[in-house]
Structure formats: structure tokens, C-alpha cells
């Protein structure tokens, strides 16, 4: 098992390296993209551009430039933004990461509880009134765009009813957990609910489908023939087996969200997270920041898929560990 885990993580490192090379090539070596011109500014003379080129080491061969970039990004950690000269990339990301992590992890708890309960209740009551009701709510939650839902939530809690029902709610923004846990949770409450709504909808629907399939499996018939209670069959047999396929979905969703995919929610609620940072960098074509955030995002997605594989092997004894 340990060997399997080590191998899996070794291959994750290889994947990360490949991603870094490809991203570097796309943003820094694509014909027509001249980092020196971007740094020098729009009206710089050719002489200035040339000077910048030499100063930033951009005249050196491509592999060296790549290594320099990686050196600044990972080892010296002093890579600076091309747009806001002086802003270091790594500390920016490190400052944004807790925001995103707080947002995503809180939402995860909510969506898992709501999604799993919804899926279980719907599957257990298949064919009754409550099943289509939950599935309708699920599809509604999936269909509503996060930015729209976020705006509506803001409209209600911050404008319309802010002086009455939601008077207890602070203005949108970010308060670190270390500063005040209560404020932290209060500020994040509606962002959590907004982000969780979409995923709770997806998970309830996927889990219901998985459970309905599992409940038609032969082993469930065997479990019934053994005289087990419906509750035990649902939780210990059907749910346990359905979790195997839910896990991969879950791991990749969390990886992507931590990696920056919670962008819309961050923007709507003014949370200075990684998504927002990436969004701004892309708008300004701020190459070093893009490089940094892409690597940061890739790290979590690759990490998540490696963790999923390990968890998968733990959950399903049929997966042969080679």
C-alpha cells in the first residue's frame, strides 16, 4: 500500500512538471507574446524593451528562461508581477489561499451533508412524492448560476432586508479565522451557502442515481434475503458501494475549487481568494501571476486526483494495488 501511495505521488510530481513546462511554453514562448514588451509598457522604445529583455534574462535560451522562472517561483520565491511592479507573486498567492480554502472547505461540509442526505432520502423514497421534489430542488440548484444566486443573496441580505431581518450580517468581505472565528464564519456564511447550493444539487442527484442502481444489485437482494433492515441495507451496503464512485467526483471537485474554480463566488462576495487573483492577472495578462496561480491550481487538482486514487483503493478492495 505504501509503495502504491509513493508511486502515485511520484507520478503526480511528473504531471506537475509537465504542466509547468506546458504553461510556460504557452504564456512565454508563444510567437507574438513578448514578455519584455509587456514589462516595458505600451509606449516603450525598442531600446528600452531590449534593456528590459537583458535585465530580466529574457534574451537567454528557452530552457534557461524556464529554469530561471521556476527558480524565482519555487526556490527564491521572489517572482514579481509585470503589471504591478514590486508585487511579489508567491506572497500574493499565499495570502489568497486561506480565503479560498476557507470558502471551499466550509462549502464542502454543507454540500456533503445536504447532498448525501438529499440523495439518501430521495433514493429511499423512490416513487413517492418526496423523491421528485428533492430531485427538482437539485436540478434547480444546479441550473442557477453562482454569480446570479450570489447577487440575489447580496441584494436580499445587504440591501432589501439588511436593516431588518439581516441586520446581524456584516458587510461582505474577508476576516481571517485567526483574527476572529465568529466574524470569519459570519462573513463566509452566505458565500458558503451559495457555493454549496450548486454542488449539493449535483451530489444529491448523482448519489440518488448511484443508490438506485446499487439497490437493484444482486448483493442488495442478498442483503434483504439475509433479513437485514432496510436502513442497514441502504447505509451499510448500498451507500458504502455508491461512495466509491462519488469519491472520484468529490476529489476532483474539491481540487478544482481550491485551485481557483470558486472564482465567481469570490468575485460576487468580494473575497480576495485565488480565483479573484487569477481573474485579475488574466485581465491584465500579468504573466508571472498567471504562471504562479496556474501552478497553484494544478498542484491542488493533481494532489486531489492522487488522493482520490489512494482513497479509491482503500474503499474498493477489488482495485488491485500494483
Amino acid at each position, binding site marked *: 500500500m505504501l509503495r502504491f501511495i509513493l508511486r502515485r505521488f511520484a507520478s503526480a510530481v511528473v504531471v506537475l512538471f509537465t504542466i509547468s513546462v506546458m504553461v510556460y511554453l504557452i504564456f512565454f514562448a508563444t510567437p507574438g507574446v513578448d514578455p519584455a514588451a509587456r514589462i516595458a509598457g505600451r509606449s516603450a522604445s525598442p531600446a528600452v524593451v531590449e534593456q528590459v529583455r537583458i535585465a530580466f534574462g529574457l534574451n537567454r535560451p528557452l530552457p534557461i528562461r524556464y529554469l530561471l522562472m521556476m527558480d524565482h517561483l519555487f526556490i527564491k520565491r521572489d517572482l514579481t508581477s509585470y503589471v504591478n511592479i514590486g508585487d511579489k507573486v508567491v506572497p500574493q498567492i499565499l495570502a489568497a489561499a486561506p480565503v479560498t480554502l476557507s470558502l471551499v472547505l466550509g462549502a464542502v461540509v454543507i454540500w456533503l451533508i445536504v447532498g448525501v442526505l438529499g440523495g439518501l432520502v430521495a433514493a429511499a423514497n423512490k416513487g413517492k412524492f418526496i423523491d421528485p421534489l428533492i430531485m427538482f430542488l437539485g436540478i434547480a440548484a444546479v441550473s442557477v448560476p453562482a454569480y446570479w444566486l450570489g447577487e440575489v443573496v447580496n441584494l436580499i441580505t445587504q440591501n432589501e432586508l439588511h436593516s431588518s431581518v439581516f441586520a446581524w450580517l456584516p458587510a461582505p468581505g474577508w476576516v481571517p479565522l485567526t483574527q476572529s472565528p465568529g466574524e470569519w464564519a459570519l462573513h463566509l456564511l452566505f458565500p458558503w451557502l451559495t457555493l454549496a447550493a450548486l454542488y449539493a444539487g449535483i451530489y444529491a442527484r448523482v448519489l440518488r442515481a448511484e443508490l438506485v442502481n446499487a439497490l437493484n444489485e444482486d448483493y442488495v*437482494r*442478498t442483503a434483504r434475503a439475509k433479513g*437485514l*433492515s*432496510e436502513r442497514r441495507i441502504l447505509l451499510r451496503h448500498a451507500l458504502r458501494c455508491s461512495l466509491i464512485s462519488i469519491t472520484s467526483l468529490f476529489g476532483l471537485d474539491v481540487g478544482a475549487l481550491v485551485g481557483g474554480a470558486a472564482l465567481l463566488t469570490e468575485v460576487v462576495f468580494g473575497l480576495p481568494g485565488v480565483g479573484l487573483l487569477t481573474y485579475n492577472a488574466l485581465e491584465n495578462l500579468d504573466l508571472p501571476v498567471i504562471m504562479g496561480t496556474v501552478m497553484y491550481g494544478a498542484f491542488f487538482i493533481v494532489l486531489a486526483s492522487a488522493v482520490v486514487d489512494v482513497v479509491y483503493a482503500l*474503499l474498493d478492495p*477489488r482495485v488491485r494495488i500494483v
Partner: protein
Amino acid sequence: MSDATLNEPVLSVRDLSVTFATRQGPLRAVDGLSFDVGAKEVLGIVGESGSGKSVAMYSMLGLVRDSNVAITGSVKFEGREILGLSDRELQSVRGGDVGMIFQDPMTAMTPVYKVGWQIVEQIRAHSDMTKAQARSRAIELLGEVGIPDPKTRVDHFPHEFSGGMRQRVVIAMALSCNPKLLIADEPTTALDVTTQAQILDLMSKLQESYGSSIVIITHDMGVIAEVANRVVVMYAGRPAEIGPEIDVVRFPRHPYTWGLLGAVPRVDVKNRRLVTIPGTPVSPLDVPTGCAFGPRCQHKMAICDERPILRGGDGHVDACWLSDEQRVAIRSQATVRGVADE
């Protein structure tokens, strides 16, 4: 065991009907089925796919989980009516006094749990044994069904066993609570012939030591002949013929049974042409009001538009309008021709 309990059937089914409400109208999967299973008796239920043989047994134990199903009639298990019991009440019957074995041992166990865990789970659902006691009982059971090295194998997952071995585990599980009745649904159909022989052998040995009655559901007349004391031949949800195994195999009365027996290619005798039953099994959605087998029967008469009842003597009954003389004539003719053609 006293004589009185010996005479009383373990399972007594009267006029069991199972009807599914479908969009195309009512689907009568089982229609007026009656039979008894005596103590220590092996009853075989034989029929082709769609004959309702599995649905009949599943329905009486509450294993048909469809809100559109209507089950009528009476099913008495050890004298107690079990049709209409709540699911909670049936739970104590299932797996406790009634054990079940299924067709495909590859999918019959939950893949993520060790086999020992699954046996322990069943034992603990029906008794107040401790985990340790149940576990040692599980090891004992695995040994009894012929799993080598049961102390180690108890901690293996289902996928680590071969098909035959897995079926042995399923049997061990079914026997774990000393059932009075064992229902085996095509227990050897998914197995190779040498493995089938091992499993049938094991089942008869265990039947002797446990004294359970067995209902074996199969499409294979050969398996019936091998293990059953009595046979119910089913067609389109209805019993076509019921009788002692030896009588039904040697002196079949119903034209469907004739066809079923004649259609089996034999290992012991060579015949160039098989008896065939023309057409395909009738869809349960449009079973004729008269004899269900009528449309495929070569000896159909005018009266066959009326539904025949089971009649006959000496515990050998069938549902057919042919008179005894007619049957004798048809059978001797068939022997002369050697074949009944398509």
C-alpha cells in the same frame, strides 16, 4: 421432532397470484399457484424464463420491491400466514428460518466486505451472539461447505474466491441461522458442470445434516431429476404439472412437459432431432384466458379456450383437457415417430 410436525408442511402455498400494474395493463406473473413443501422435502420448480418461478418465491418473502405489485392468496410457513406481514416482520423470517441462495455467486455478495463480515452480519441480525462467537460460527460454516483453510479465508473478500467457492460461501451464509427452508434460485446455472456437481452434492449433504426443506428453482430438468423429490412445472405463471419427480420425468402428463423433456439434448442417448415446442414462451402481458399453453400446443382442442384446472391422482396432477386415453394415444404415436416436429 414429533409425527404431527412431520406431517405438517413447512411451506404451504394456496392460490398465489402476483400481478404487476404496468402501462400496458396488468401483468400476471404468477397466477393461481398452489403447492406444499413437506419437512425435509426437496421441491423443484422448473420453467423457462418468464414462467414466474422466481417471482413466486420472491413475492412471498417480500423480495419483490415494486409498489405496483399486488400479491394475493395464502402462504403459510410452519402454519403461520406470512403473506401480508409487514416488512419488519418478514425480516425475521428472511435469513432466519428461510435461507436463500442465488444464481450468480459473482454478484451475490457485497464486494467491499470480507466474507466473514457478511456471514457475521447475518448471524447477528437473527441472534444475540457476540461478534467473536458469530465469527467462530462463520469459520465453522465455511469449513462445513468445503472451503479449505477457513480460518484464513474468512478474512478474504468475495472477489478473491472462484465462482464455485463463492457459491459455497453464499450457501454457508444461507445456512448460518439453521433455516427450516432453503430457497435456491438457479444455484448452479452460472457454474461449470463439474462445479455444479460439487455444489449439488454439497447441498444434498447439508440437507441431510441440517434437515432443511429445499425449494430449488431451475430451468434445467436434469438438475431437477438429480435433486428434487417433487416437481412443479410452471408455464406462463401457472402450474402446468405437479407431481413426484420420478413420475413427472418418466410419465409426464402435460404436453408442455413432454416438449420440455424432449427438447433437452441428452448426454446418454443420441437423437438427431430434438422435440421442439413451436413459437416462443407467451408474454405474461397477454396470457390467453383459456389454457396458457394453448397457442403453442399441437393437441389444442375447442375446450382449450377454457382454462383447465389441475387434476389427476396420486399426487400427480396437471392442467390439461386431454383425457387419459388421448394422452396414451399421443405418446405412443410420438414414440413411433420418434419426433414431434416444429
